[in-house]
Each structure stands twice: as structure tokens, then as C-alpha cells.
């Protein structure tokens, strides 16, 4: 009887909990949906064919083509990835495979610390040190370097977690066959964690594309730049929004909101793909 009473109580609590959880989850979706809806409505007048094809962005002539900014966003993110991925993977492998146990905790802590530095600090550092002291100027490359520092922690910590799921048996099997540490990493750790690592990189990519202030400070704010020259000044979607919003009138404002919507869609797509890849790889490694 006591048990039944308890169970009844439990069921009640269970139901309350699930209602709360569903409500919370629903609220997040609702907020996301509302943001998308309101923004798209405000941006609607700016979405024309030229928004996706034109390379001109002129408030005076009311021509708003987003193409150079989409290019700048993707290009700086790719530069950031190219720099951050080898470093992050190296750090993750060092922490999990090579570092003595007493060093692991402080290393993890130090890397995570990078993630909490406000982006404006990175931006200012970029302006003062990279642009001026090292003479890189304001360019795609400067922005890419700053972004790479900002996404290193997220890629490192995700990679570390994925790598740690490699079963000891697989590693020991490789070592037992006479593999060196590097051969062991190549033969068992990397194949095992491949999917998760790709996901980690893509999450970093999403972060790099959405970064605003640091990019706005160092990217150079040049219009109409679609070039692969990393030393050229350019612009990215969030940087344009941050720079121009304060003094914008309609329809300039609508165009900036349209940029935001486009950025929203791109980053959500990248993040969705990333999570799918991570989840699939997790499932596979758990199944193994």
C-alpha cells in the first residue's frame, strides 16, 4: 500500500515534470519561430533577386546586394577553420593521449578560459596587435586569425570528448601490434572519432560565421569585395549589420535585417548539419 501511494505520487510528479519540460522545449521553438517570422516580415521589402545576385551595396541608390558579405562571411570562416582545426586537434590529442594526467585538468581549464574572453577584447587585440604592430592591416586574413582563436576552444573541447570515447581495447590492440603512438592514433583514435571531429569543426564554423564585433573591428569594412586575396579588406554579414544599423533609415534597415535573416538561415543550416553528424557518430561509437 505504501508502495502504491508512493507510485501514485511519483506518477503525478512525472506528469508535472514532463509538462514543464515540453513547455520549456516548446517555448524555445516558439521564440525561434517568432524571431524568424518577425525578422522575415521586416526584411521582406529587401528580398529581391538583386539581394542574392548584386555585388553593390549602396544606401544612396537603394541597391542592396548581399553577395560580397556572404562571401566575406564564408571566406573568413574558412580561413579561421584552416588555422584552428590543426591547432585544436593537436591540443585535443595532446590532452587525451600524450599529456601526463596532472597536466590534463589545467590544460582543459586554460583552453576553456579562451572561450569566455569577450569578443570585443579579441577584436581590440586584433586592431592593436595584428593590424598595427604586425602590419597585417584590416583584412580577411586578420579577421580569420582572430576568429580562429575564438573558435579554438569549442573545437578543442568537443574533439577531446569525442576522442575520449575511443575504447581502450582498440588503442591497446594497435599498441599490442607494435604500433607507435602516432600509428595508434592514426589507426584507432582518428577513424573512431572521425564523425564527431567533423561535427566539432562545423560547430566552430557556425560560431565563426556569426561572430560580430571582433570581425567588425578587423575585417576592413570594404564594400563589394569578392576576392580570394586574404590581404584585401572585406566585410562580413554580421559586421555590416553592426556597423551600419545605428545610422540606417528605411529601406537600408530592411536590407540589414534581410542580411540578419540570411545569416540566421545559414548558421542554423550549418549547426543542424553539425549536430546530425555528431549524433550519428556518437551512435556508431556507442554501438561498436
Amino acid at each position: 500500500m505504501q508502495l502504491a501511494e508512493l507510485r501514485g505520487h511519483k506518477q503525478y510528479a512525472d506528469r508535472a515534470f514532463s509538462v514543464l519540460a515540453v513547455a520549456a522545449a516548446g517555448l524555445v521553438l516558439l521564440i525561434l519561430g517568432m524571431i524568424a517570422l518577425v525578422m522575415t516580415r521586416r526584411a521582406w521589402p529587401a528580398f529581391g533577386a538583386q539581394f542574392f545576385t548584386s555585388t553593390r551595396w549602396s544606401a544612396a541608390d537603394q541597391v542592396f546586394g548581399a553577395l560580397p558579405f556572404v562571401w566575406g562571411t564564408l571566406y573568413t570562416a574558412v580561413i579561421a577553420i584552416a588555422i584552428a582545426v590543426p591547432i585544436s586537434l593537436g591540443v585535443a590529442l595532446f590532452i587525451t593521449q600524450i599529456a601526463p594526467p596532472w597536466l590534463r585538468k589545467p590544460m582543459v581549464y586554460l583552453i576553456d578560459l579562451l572561450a569566455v574572453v569577450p569578443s570585443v577584447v579579441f577584436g581590440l587585440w586584433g586592431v592593436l596587435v595584428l593590424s598595427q604592430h604586425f602590419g597585417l592591416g584590416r583584412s580577411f586574413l586578420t579577421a580569420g586569425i582572430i576568429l580562429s582563436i575564438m573558435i579554438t576552444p569549442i573545437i578543442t573541447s568537443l574533439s577531446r570528448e569525442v576522442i575520449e570515447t575511443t575504447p581502450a581495447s582498440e588503442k591497446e590492440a594497435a599498441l599490442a601490434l607494435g604500433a607507435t603512438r602516432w600509428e595508434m592514433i592514426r589507426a584507432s583514435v582518428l577513424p573512431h572519432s572521425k564523425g564527431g571531429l567533423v561535427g566539432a569543426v562545423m560547430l566552430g564554423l557556425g560560431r565563426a560565421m556569426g561572430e560580430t564585433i571582433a570581425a567588425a573591428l578587423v575585417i576592413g569594412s570594404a564594400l563589394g569585395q569578392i576576392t580570394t586575396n586574404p590581404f584585401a579588406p572585406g566585410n562580413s554579414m554580421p559586421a555590416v549589420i553592426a556597423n551600419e544599423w545605428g545610422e540606417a533609415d528605411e529601406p537600408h534597415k530592411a536590407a540589414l535585417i534581410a542580411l540578419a535573416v540570411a545569416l540566421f538561415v545559414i548558421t542554423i543550416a550549418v549547426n543542424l548539419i553539425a549536430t546530425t553528424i555528431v549524433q550519428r557518430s556518437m551512435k556508431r561509437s556507442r554501438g561498436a
Partner: protein
Amino acid sequence: MYKMIAFSAFAALCVAGCNKKKEEGGGSTAAMTKEDKGAAKAPESGPVTINGSGSTFQKPYQEVAIDAFTKANASVKINYGGGGSGKGRQDLADQVVDFAGADSPYKDADLAKNKGGDVLYFPILLGAITISYNVDGVDKLQLSPETIARIFQRDIKKWNDKDIAADNPGAKLPDADIVVAHRSDGSGTTDNFTKYLDQAAKDVWKLKSGATVEWPADTQAGTGNPGVAQIVKSTKGAIGYVDLSDAKASGLKFANVKNQAGKFIEPTTDSSSAAGDGIDVKDNLLFSAINAKGDASYPITYQTWAIVYAKQADHAKGTALKSFIKFLISDGQAQLKPLDFAPLPKGLADKAVAQLDKIQVP
């Protein structure tokens, strides 16, 4: 997100620091016992907070004026957030603030969207935009509007170009590349600078005017006036448009610019005030000080307004706001020169004071 930049962050810190916070409780007694330091006294009432936002151009003056005014009127607390003229106008339209600072007025089409009805414009100061440069061995530079236009749209790429030489007879100009610096953020300074070129060099200037314009890609962009000043200071061969106070603060050299009368004029607070004398002012106190007539006028002079609603909703607030605006256009003007701003010329100041009567306080 507005111009979220380090410089405005620093400026915001300064506001917080500079406005010595008055405790509002015992404020009114303090106001009664205080000696009058020339600041207009607001009629006694409970503690009032007035909020303003907008133009970063007039912000240094607002900070000093607010400090002086609230010292004399301890029951009034005033906040002025920057954010740019566009933000100020929007905030006032949405009635988020009690007054806006703006370097250019509302567009006619937007006036109907103002929730509080008709607005009044009070001009509060004039300021010069310098053409600052960094060229070794050139300590004196003269530029005509056409040459400035050609430089900034990258038709002229060398310092020893014939157009520059023609403006500077006898000067030794180096064979150095010109680096053009401009604002990366939307800005009233850019708006007024490009409006000037659009008027004074209309046959040459091709980039039109606005808070942001289509600068050629081979130019450098900095955030805020200090950002442009910083590029000019650190780059050999650089030239950029920077407001007078930031140019002086950064120790930059700047050019004398040819005005309508054909004279090359140095940007100073006096030559800006002189520009204010040579302009046509409309009945609603709207005007443009750009490219003003007059022998002594510095031509790239611009203006900024405080904008308020004609019909105030609250007695205490409206009264305090009215006396603060009065302070800005009368007694406060003495604070302008040390900040490298130009006071309003007498005629304009009188018109502004007369317009105070149009503020209706219930």
C-alpha cells in the same frame, strides 16, 4: 546592435564616471541652498530623470553640460547615451527617450511615425570636420573641394599629383602613395562630409552622400572618429576626415580648405562659428552649415540639434527638460570652445532661445 565599439564603450564608461550621481532623496534642499553658478535653475519639484540618446558628435558637450546643469539642479538627473543620430531619432520617435541628439533632421516621411506628435529642433553647436593627413615634410596643406573629392574617390593616388600641387603653389610634395581613411560605421560625420563634397564639388564627386557611402575598396576603414584618427596617425601618406576635437586630441595635422569665397581657411572654432553666420536658417531652425558663404567660413562645418516634442506630457519632466535645453543653448555655450566645438552665432542662439516658448508644458 548599434555601433557597439570599444570607443563608445569607453565613452559610456566616461558618462557613468563623469555624471557624479546625485542621490535624489535630499536633492531639492541641496538645490535650494546651492549657489548659482550660471546654470539655469529648474523650478523646484520632485526628483526627475531625463533621458536622451543619439549623436556621438555632440556627446562630449552633453557630458560637460549635464555635469554643470545637474550640479546646479540637484533634483534633476540627466542621462545621455550615444548610439548615433539615427538611434536618437528612432528612440525619440518611439518615446523611449525625452530628447534626441541628431546631426541631421527627421526625413519628412518619418515625421508621421513620431508617437509624441510635432517635434522642435534646437541647434546646440557647430563643429568642423578636418581633412587630417600624415605626410612627412608637409606641414601646411591647402585643398580645394574638387581636389578633396578626387583624393577620396581615388582619382588621385600620389601626394605630388598636379591637382594637389595646384592648390599648394611652391610647396614640396613627396612622391608618396595616398592612403584614404574613412569610417567603417554609419556616421553623421560621413553624412555631412559627403554632403559637403556633393555640394561643393558636384561636378567631380561621384560617391553621393549618406551615413555610409560606397568607398572604393582600396581604402581603409576605422570605427568612430578616433578610429579614423588612429589610422591617419599610424599610416604614412594617410588622409582622412576627422572631427576637429578628435584630430586635435590625436595631434594630427590638418589642411586649410578652400571656401565659397575662394579663401583657404583653417578649421578652428572661430571659423566654424563664422560659417554659422553665413547660412540660411528656416523658421523651424533647420539649416545646413555646410559650404557656408562668407570670407572667414570654414566650409566643412556641420551642426547638431537637440530634438524634443513640442507637447510635453509630464509637468515636472517637461519643466526640467525645457530648462536643460535652455542651458544647452545659452549659459552652457561657454563650455564649447575648450572642447573644440564652435558656439552658436548670436543670431541663431537668439532664435533658439525664442523657440523655447513653443515647448508646451502641462
